[in-house]
């Protein structure tokens, strides 16, 4: 039997509503990024609902993600998903949180539609594993470096990625009950 | 029940000798008479067991229902008494499915390997004074030998089903039943040492003269209770057929009347274990006022009630805990009990 895990200090209520705190958090991200690699040019946006928003280029996602977790304590990935913006390409959205300070951040990555590849963040936040599989399954975004990129919700051998806006159901239509003629 | 109650008249000394005389007067060879008597005895025991098993299954469901704040069967007959009959009919008309992957003959035979010994034990159970099919001088040994025969049946059933769940169930059954056989026998052994006889009838008489062995052997009784419940595959020791883990264990693939045979065997074994417990620890048929047979039934059902009550209260053990419990706790306690009993008797 191993030792009991110590309790992480209790997080005070952080609505993070006051713009000042948010701006400070945004500045921290900017500074850390500048220290890491000046070419990143990260511009965290302050949102009104208590979240920060950060747009990251696809090539630098892994680097930024590692920085976010290791340097800035964003240790908790809430969700990872994708959005199909049709001709504007796909967008991968990550919601991450710093559990001990309550800072919350939305990371968006734009990827072109004709080349739907995105680096996998499974090595940084293991929970991304299934989220990425789901995004691959439903949106067809290929996560590179994912250990086990298979379909997860649809069955194996499914054709197409259903959450894409241009998805056409190729199955024959289901038999409907004929409406009684009156 | 009426048939069983009429048994004293049939097996009683007077009627027996008169009938024997009648046969000899008719000029028939004595072995025909012996066969006839044996057949009547077997029929009576069979009827007794089947009636009781029907009742037991109903009782389990009804008692389970009320222990859990529900009603249990209510629709078939008064208090749902005919529910078991209805279920039996339903099960009998169901399709007899034999899986393609099954080892056909072993699969077919397995339920009967379990069923026959369960009935054979009743040969030596004393229902009342003189009311016993055969008073073997090694009664306890006989019971132990036959109750061990269920293991090959379960192993056969699990192995031959061709299903992994069944196989796992069979392995568990094998390990569990062999383990619990030991403390079970040791608990019985302590009683035997005290009574000084292996004959069940003698053990009852010893209790009639002295006091019930449950008072002299409380530890032995508790060991017997636990080991018997384990032998019966009942909660908390129902690992071989743990439905939440192994679907249904060794009988996953059984359906229709083969399943019914397993079911029947299970309850016949419950009845058997209860009867043996009543005989060994609760004074068997002995008791004041009421007829001996009624006493026997009452005591049997006390044990049955305990087994059911335990089933509806406790969660299930895990497979390693089960083995630990048998070998590291129950066995030493049972051994100690035998040693202490031996010492007391020797003094």
């Amino acid at each position, binding site marked *: 039997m191993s030792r009991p895990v110590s309790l992480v200090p209790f997080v005070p209520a952080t609505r993070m509503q006051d713009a000042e705190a948010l701006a400070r958090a945004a500045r921290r991200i900017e500074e850390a990024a500048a220290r890491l690699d000046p070419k990143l040019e990260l511009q965290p946006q302050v949102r009104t609902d208590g979240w920060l928003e950060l747009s990251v280029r696809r090539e630098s996602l892994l680097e930024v993600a590692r920085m976010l977790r290791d340097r800035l304590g964003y240790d908790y990935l809430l969700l990872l998903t994708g959005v199909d913006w049709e001709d504007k390409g796909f967008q991968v959205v990550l919601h991450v949180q710093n559990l001990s300070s309550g800072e919350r951040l939305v990371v968006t990555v734009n990827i072109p539609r004709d080349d739907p590849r995105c680096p996998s963040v499974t090595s940084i936040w293991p929970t991304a594993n299934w989220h990425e599989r789901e995004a691959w399954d439903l949106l067809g975004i290929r996560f590179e470096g994912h250990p086990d990129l298979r379909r997860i919700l649809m069955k194996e051998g499914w054709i197409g990625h259903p*959450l894409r806006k241009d998805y056409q159901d190729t199955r024959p239509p289901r038999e409907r009950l004929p409406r009684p003629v009156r | 029940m009426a048939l069983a109650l009429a048994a004293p008249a049939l097996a009683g000394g007077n009627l027996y000798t008169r009938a024997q005389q009648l046969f000899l007067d008719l000029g028939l060879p004595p072995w025909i008479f012996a066969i006839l008597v044996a057949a009547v005895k077997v029929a009576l025991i069979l009827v007794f067991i089947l009636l009781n098993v029907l009742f037991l299954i109903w009782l389990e469901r009804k008692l389970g229902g009320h222990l859990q*704040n529900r009603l249990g069967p209510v629709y078939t007959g008064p208090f749902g008494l005919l529910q078991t009959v209805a279920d039996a009919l339903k099960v009998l008309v169901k399709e007899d499915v034999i899986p393609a992957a099954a080892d056909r003959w072993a699969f077919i035979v397995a339920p009967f390997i379990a069923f026959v010994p369960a009935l054979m034990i009743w040969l030596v159970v004393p229902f009342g004074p003189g009311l016993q099919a055969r008073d073997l001088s090694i009664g306890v040994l006989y019971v132990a030998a036959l109750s061990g025969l269920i293991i090959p049946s379960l192993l056969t059933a699990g192995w031959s089903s061709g299903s992994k769940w069944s196989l796992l169930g069979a392995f568990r059954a094998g390990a569990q039943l062999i383990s619990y056989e030991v403390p079970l026998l040791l608990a019985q052994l302590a009683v035997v040492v005290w009574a000084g006889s292996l004959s069940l009838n003698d053990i009852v008489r010893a209790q009639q003269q002295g006091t019930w062995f449950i008072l002299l052997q409380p530890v032995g009784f508790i060991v017997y209770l636990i080991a018997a419940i384990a032998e019966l595959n009942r909660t908390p020791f129902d690992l071989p057929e743990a439905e939440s883990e192994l679907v249904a264990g060794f009988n996953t693939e059984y359906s229709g009347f083969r399943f019914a045979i397993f079911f029947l065997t299970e309850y016949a074994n419950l009845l058997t274990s209860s009867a043996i417990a009543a005989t060994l620890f609760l004074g068997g048929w002995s008791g004041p006022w009421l007829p001996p047979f009624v006493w026997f039934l009452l005591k049997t059902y006390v044990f049955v009630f305990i087994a059911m009550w335990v089933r509806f209260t406790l969660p299930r053990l895990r*497979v390693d805990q089960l083995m630990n419990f048998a070998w590291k706790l129950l066995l030493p306690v049972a051994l100690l009990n035998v040693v202490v009993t031996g010492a007391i008797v020797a003094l």
Partner: protein
Amino acid sequence: MDTQIEPRTAGGEEIHTEEIMVNMGPQHPSTHGVLRAVLTLDGERITGVDCDIGYLHRCFEKVSEKLTYPQIIPYTDRADYLGGMTNELAFVLTVEQALGIEVPRRAQFIRVIMSELQRIHSHLIWFGTFGLDLGATTPFLYSFRDREVISDFFEEVSGARMMYNYMRVGGVRNDITAAWVEKVREFLRRFPAYLQEYDDLLTGNPILKARTRGIGRIDAATAIAYGASGPVLRASGVAYDLRKNDPYLVYDELSFEVATATEGDVLARYRVRLKEMRESARLVQQALEGLPEGDFLGKAPRIIKLPPGHYYGHVEGPRGEVGCYIVSDGDRRPYRLHWRAPSFVHLQLLPIMAKGHFMGDMVAIIGSIDIVMGEVDR
């Protein structure tokens, strides 16, 4: 799988042993729905688990793109069908946050009452099925007996026992009456006795302790890395509860304790959930005390159109953090809706928890993370 089996020998000769693959599910009594876990077993010991999900996939997210916001509310009930109220709340809060709507105070209190009753309701089911997984049939019947009472409350106020469709953008669908409040009070008076009964029946049982202590252990770091939330995270020693850490509704005005444990095993999760039921009862009590008069449904636009942008709202559901991510392009319908289902996230932990344990522990672990397949597959 990567676990090596040590060679076994008998009389100097090596015995050839093989791992077997067993399909646990999709039809299995203890997978709580249609989860298929492909187990690799070395005897009874689990060397590998591979979860196969999707048997209950109902295209919730795709369907939502075709529905207006009020029409989605009944669909959210069906994601986690044991936590309908909190699911609706997550969705409705997200929409309200996007619209910037202020909800009347009475509605907020009613929402708290419903969420907490829902938590008790859901945990009671968990308690029963957990007992069932461990082979005890009776707790299931007792907890369902008591859960029915809460179902009756929900039915009276919302019209349905499971698929409530009760929350509305701007408030709730129906007001609660004084008679209803009195009934809930009566239930809360009896509730400690119920819990005592459960404690006597299962919690104090040595078999339960033996079956659960040290099983399926995950430490705080793993839990966080895998995004666990709710009781699973709190049982690993992280006192993270959205009701405290990101208070929504009126939770910051009510006093309650966050149930935590440090062991991170099945027993710890069991304890945390039982404690949570007590705390939820306290919360309902307080919310009933403080229930103000006023509107139960505030002002909301007749036709709900979210301004373009993306919004994330989350609440503490019975199973963990229920999140709702809405992308809007300004239409009456969401452009994209994503549901963060705690069960989906927790199920990833199953292989980590189960590895090296016995077959019988597997069901205890599945029971302890309290998955609802409707939410996993959506």
